[in-house]
């Protein structure tokens, strides 16, 4: 490959725009449904991680260039911020997007292991909505109470803040689910997209 095709071209920016929207929409819809009930509330990042794997894997396969995942993180962050997520979540999307970009680039976007590692990291972004519960509970309580009455959620939120193992357990669970989601993505990619000549 010559040097020019390693950089993002106009056609890549257009794909980035479309797939970022799909990624954010899936995260928003699945995450929104998961956050509606107190029981599934703590499992939101895991459920999202299961579903976004396919989009992420196709995204890397289609645009294997440096910078693509960074823009994915920025646009998803903006879209999710506008739709009322806690600002830490958008910050997580941007920061983890940049790091995931580096990991993928170090594997030349071809190494499945590196891509998987990058996805497991990037899938932690929705955790940005939960980490504040432990780090700055008062600020988060204020945000949630402005959002609406959270009486049936407060016990769940408090227990996440009170138990030291809650956040690490959620991180581990999310990584595990991201792993499964990534494998589903790889399988679908093989089964459908490579045959159809999309990738």
């Amino acid at each position, binding site marked *: 490959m010559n040097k020019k095709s390693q950089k*993002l071209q*106009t*056609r890549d*920016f*257009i*794909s*980035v*725009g*479309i*797939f*970022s*929207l*799909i990624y954010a*929409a899936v995260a928003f819809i699945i995450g929104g449904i998961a956050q*509606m*009930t*107190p029981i599934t509330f703590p499992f939101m990042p895991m459920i999202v991680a299961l*579903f976004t794997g*396919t*989009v992420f894997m*196709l995204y890397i396969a*289609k645009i294997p260039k440096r*910078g693509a995942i960074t*823009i994915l993180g*920025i*646009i998803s962050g903006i*879209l999710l*911020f*506008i*739709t*009322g997520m806690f600002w830490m979540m958008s910050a997580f999307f941007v920061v983890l997007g940049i790091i995931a970009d580096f990991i993928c680039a170090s594997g030349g976007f071809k190494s499945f292991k590196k891509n998987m590692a990058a996805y497991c990291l990037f899938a932690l972004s929705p955790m940005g909505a939960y980490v504040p519960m432990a780090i700055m509970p008062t600020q988060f309580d204020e*945000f949630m*109470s*402005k*959002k*609406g*009455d*959270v*009486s*049936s*959620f407060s016990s769940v939120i408090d227990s996440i803040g009170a138990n030291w193992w809650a956040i690490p357990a959620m991180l581990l669970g999310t990584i595990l689910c991201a792993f499964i989601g990534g494998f*589903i993505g790889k399988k*679908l990619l093989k089964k*459908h*997209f490579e045959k*159809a000549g*999309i990738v």
Partner: protein
Amino acid sequence: MKIDPRTKLLILAITSISVFLNGSITIECIFAALPFLLLLSTKKIYTALKYAALFLVLLAIQFWLVPLLPVSAGGIIYMFAVYIRKLIPCFMLGSLLISTTRVSEFLAAVGKLRLPKGFTISLSITLRYFPTMGEEWNSIKDAMALRGIPVTAAGILRHPMRTMEYTYVPMLVSASKISDEITQAAITRGIDHVQRRTCMETVRFHVMDMLILVVYITVIILAFLANGKGWF
């Protein structure tokens, strides 16, 4: 009446931040009423009425239905109703931005913000793809229903993997194809040109933009007063 795309972006940002920081229902109604009027003034009457009706229904649920229900179920419905209702002003402004802004106009306006060109292109394509994604989703749902695969909550819970595969694959394949088509169209129209882009329409702030911004700043000040001093 024309509003600068930058004004639309700015009021969308203002609304999405302040709606979730604001506890007063009066202020929230103002935040919903402003985009409603803007939508009416751009003759998107059907969209405006649809969102207004949804807003009122959710407001009614909060006031009349929730007190009748037991606490746990009431809490969930309350959360749902309030959360969706707070998103309605953002959705209205979003649909105003998407339906009344052409991509070229958006590119010209955002280009003036001196962001990197690639990022500008990605962002405008994201906006442009919103309605298309809705159309694609409806066609996929129709096609699935035709083959006897219902896209309902029960169906999704019974066959999560199958439903995921059947919705994702057509969605992503069509997204790939559309992205190629947009690329061809954009390159034909010279998006790769290195010099500064010019635009047929002059994109600049008008009196209307000033007016809208003044109104929004007033509402923010009111929201601050409502939060701090317990007015309204």
